[in-house]
């Protein structure tokens, strides 16, 4: 399986996701934001970090990078595109997934483990994951997902919510919502479910020595689904 990770100026989880993808069998290539062409890929990842220093609005400048036109075309033709954290912020700015990401409700950066409940498994990202609940890790200042009521209705009607913040038993309640996201949304799909944007970092959970191992589950499953 071939993957590509885009490096924007200010990306800082590009190495982490590169390590994770390779660990689980992807042949990964790093792609510079100013390139025009995407290498042939089965998966494109927009990594976390602070592309363009979060200036103007998180993700907004990166969404206009030269490479992004190819990424958008790739996504529109059914290619798998995953945005993690700042990558998610870039995805909403391109309009590939609906909604926006506001500043965290308590106005502070949060770095901690969270639990997320998988809402939909009829897609290549979560199909065949045995668990209902995964322990992931978040590290962000602007992860407060917001959209209009009409958008929310459409998202729910199409089953576009990927994961919701919850407790270890899968209970989705306000007290388990770290950032104020509407409906505890931690990640969403586009309509076709080939594009996934999510705030948590599965690449930081790929080793028992780290924060946990549920990221390994996610990547192992992902590469199998793509085969």
């Amino acid at each position, binding site marked *: 399986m071939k993957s590509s990770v885009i490096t924007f100026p200010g990306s800082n989880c590009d190495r982490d996701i590169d390590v994770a993808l390779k660990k689980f069998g992807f042949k990964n290539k790093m792609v510079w934001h100013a390139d025009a062409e995407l290498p042939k890929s089965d998966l494109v990842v927009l990594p976390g970090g*602070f592309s363009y*220093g979060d200036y103007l609005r998180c993700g907004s400048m990166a969404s206009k990078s030269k490479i992004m036109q190819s990424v958008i075309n790739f996504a529109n033709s059914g290619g798998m595109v995953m945005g993690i954290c700042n990558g998610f912020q870039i995805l909403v700015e391109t309009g590939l997934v609906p909604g926006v990401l506001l500043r965290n409700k308590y106005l502070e950066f949060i770095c901690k483990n969270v639990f997320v409940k998988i809402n939909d498994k009829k897609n290549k990202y979560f199909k065949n994951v045995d668990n209902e609940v995964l322990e992931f890790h978040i590290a962000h200042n602007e992860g407060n997902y917001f959209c209009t009521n009409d958008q929310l209705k459409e998202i729910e009607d199409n089953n576009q919510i990927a994961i919701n913040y919850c407790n270890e038993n899968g209970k989705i309640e306000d007290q388990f919502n770290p950032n104020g996201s509407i409906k505890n949304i931690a990640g969403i799909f586009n309509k076709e479910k080939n594009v996934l944007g999510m705030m948590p970092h599965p690449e930081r959970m790929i080793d028992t020595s780290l924060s946990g191992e549920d990221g390994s589950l996610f990547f192992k499953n992902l590469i199998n689904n793509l085969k």
Partner: protein
Amino acid sequence: MIVNEQIAIDHGLKKDEYAKICKLLKRTPNITELGIFSAMWNEHCSYKSSRLHLKKLPTKGKKVIQGPGENAGVIDIEDNDAIVFKIESHNHPSFIEPYQGAATGVGGIMRDVFTMGARPIANLNSIHFGSPQNKKTKNLLRGVVHGIGGYGNCMGVPTIAGQTSFDSSYNGNILVNAMTLGLVKKNKIFYSKAAGLNKPVIYVGSKTGRDGIHGASMASASFDEKIEEKKPTVQVGDPFTEKLLLEACLELMAGDSIIAIQDMGAAGLTSSSIEMASKGNLGIEINLNKVPCRESKMTPYEIMLSESQERMLIVLENGKEEQAKKIFDKWNLDFAVIGKTTKSKKIELYFDEEKVADIPVNTLVENSPMYDRKWKKTKLPKKNKIKKEDIKHLKIIDSLKKILANPNVCSKEWIWQQYDHTVMGDTIQKPGGDAGVVRVHGTDKAVAASVDSSAVYCWAHPLTGGKQVVCESFRNLISVGAKPIAITNCLNFGSPENEENMGEFVECVEGIGEASEYLKFPVVSGNVSFYNQTKDEGIKPTPAIGGVGLIKNFKKMITMEFKEVDSLVLVIGKTEGHIDQSLFARNILDEKNGPPPEVNLFNEKNNGETLLKLIDNNLIKSAHDVSLGGLITAVAKMCIKGKKGINIKKPKYLINEIEYLFAEDQGRYIVEINKKDFKKVADILNKNAVHFDELGTITEKNIYINSKTKVTIDELSTSNKSWLTNYMSK
């Protein structure tokens, strides 16, 4: 402007210093030259009051590749890997403007590390605030934490450990010390020594603006009512540019075109160019019209003294300019050839085709003032005798809860949750333990780091306090299973012109030197911050020690939380019952006098090294050093983190229960072992003549003391975790 004595005094120079400048130059300096002298000769850059004493610190060792004198210290961690590290203060700016002050402190220390070719892999910090009741404290704390996070998070470098304290002596002068560790290949370390004639001098990074002019002079003065006016001397940070600068520099460093590189930190272009010339015994000629400027009509004076952030000065091999420029273009950073190295041994500056400065480099560096300031020795205070009636009515559990909720002991999760501590994917011990630990990427090795200070002990008796801080750093590294290698120090004190403050400095340094010599834990880098005082009132002496150690196999790392019910808990090291200057004495008994606990270096070394042996033999399940709040506080924290209880039986020796539980005797660790390993462990401890007590057995969820006192871990956990969150949300 014609320079005169008054203008020199306004620049923070003393009368005799100005006279010396005129004598060295054999003429009156012009204003640009005066600015350069004032920047180079202030306390922050010249170490004029401290140099004499810092010379006494042990700085060499088998593992030391580079000691003090470079941008940062470098130690060997085997297999051609080396760790570059340093701690630095940003106290004055952080009090004036907490967000930018703290942020640029973090930015500055990271630059010191990647200037040497190392990729930063971990940040730490030691931050100290006034009393929680002081009306400024909350905003300063919030601003500093946001600033540290704002910069470090954006850079993508994990903040893995730190220390926060509150004390009314910091009411008018908070302390913000930032530390960074970087990883480099031993054969790819870059230094700041220029070499060769007619080599191009390159400016890279951000453009120069008017921010931070005279920042270093501001950091060398005391505060008074007018501090608000100093806001414009605080630099403004841009972590995004620094991230680009980091990547661009490392990309350039992968080749072989750099002769010397130096970041523009305090005193900007002035100190960076002069340091490179001085170390290379060369001259430097700069055309200031070539310096990329952010604002129009900047004068030579402003350009030379600006402390705009995220800039570097490089001496390049001839003919490599184009190749280097391509890299900086790729990262959208300024790149300008601004001058060349010369044989004149002078710093010669040109602006609008006129020579605007002409100063022999040695007058700025070797001839800079050095003072043997007067200082006063601190006598060891007399021991207090605790009266039985003072403690008779005290309940152990109430005191324990109070101590766990004390601002200096309570959980700092509110702070470190705002720092990205997991980016780079190698953090295997997060903040909240004895030391932070990161793996050396792609290897079995890990590096542990901690930062410590004990202002109360240093205040009570600087010599003992100085020793104690080094020992605490040593213990914190050992507690996670790391072999301590070297330290960096950030020496925060009041005015060196005050005999008592100077005495605190001299004796703390003596104590640090003695301990680091004995423990073979040399000082490889550091920074001195004097004048932490408002009007006549100085802070408590606060040397902060950043220690670094190596874990050869990261799977052997130890954490502090209790692991298993029925495990046996031991105290390594002897408890003598020293209560003076303990948290218990100061906060429960309200007794602020007396000596700090004695430091026995033999025991420190022996106990620590023996514990490392036990760890190496896989006999230790968890470990934690005993510090503030004594034995019971250490045990309670291990219980809280592990969500386990313990059944404690006080050994039957002389001292009473309160002294046994709350004393802050040094050289002690709490360890958890498997019952079946007891004989093996006891044998090793006995063979090495290490005193130990059996403290008790791990239980489900309560702490029992001598079967008569009981408290649930949930209760203790609430005491420990709620203070800071509540304080910040009020």
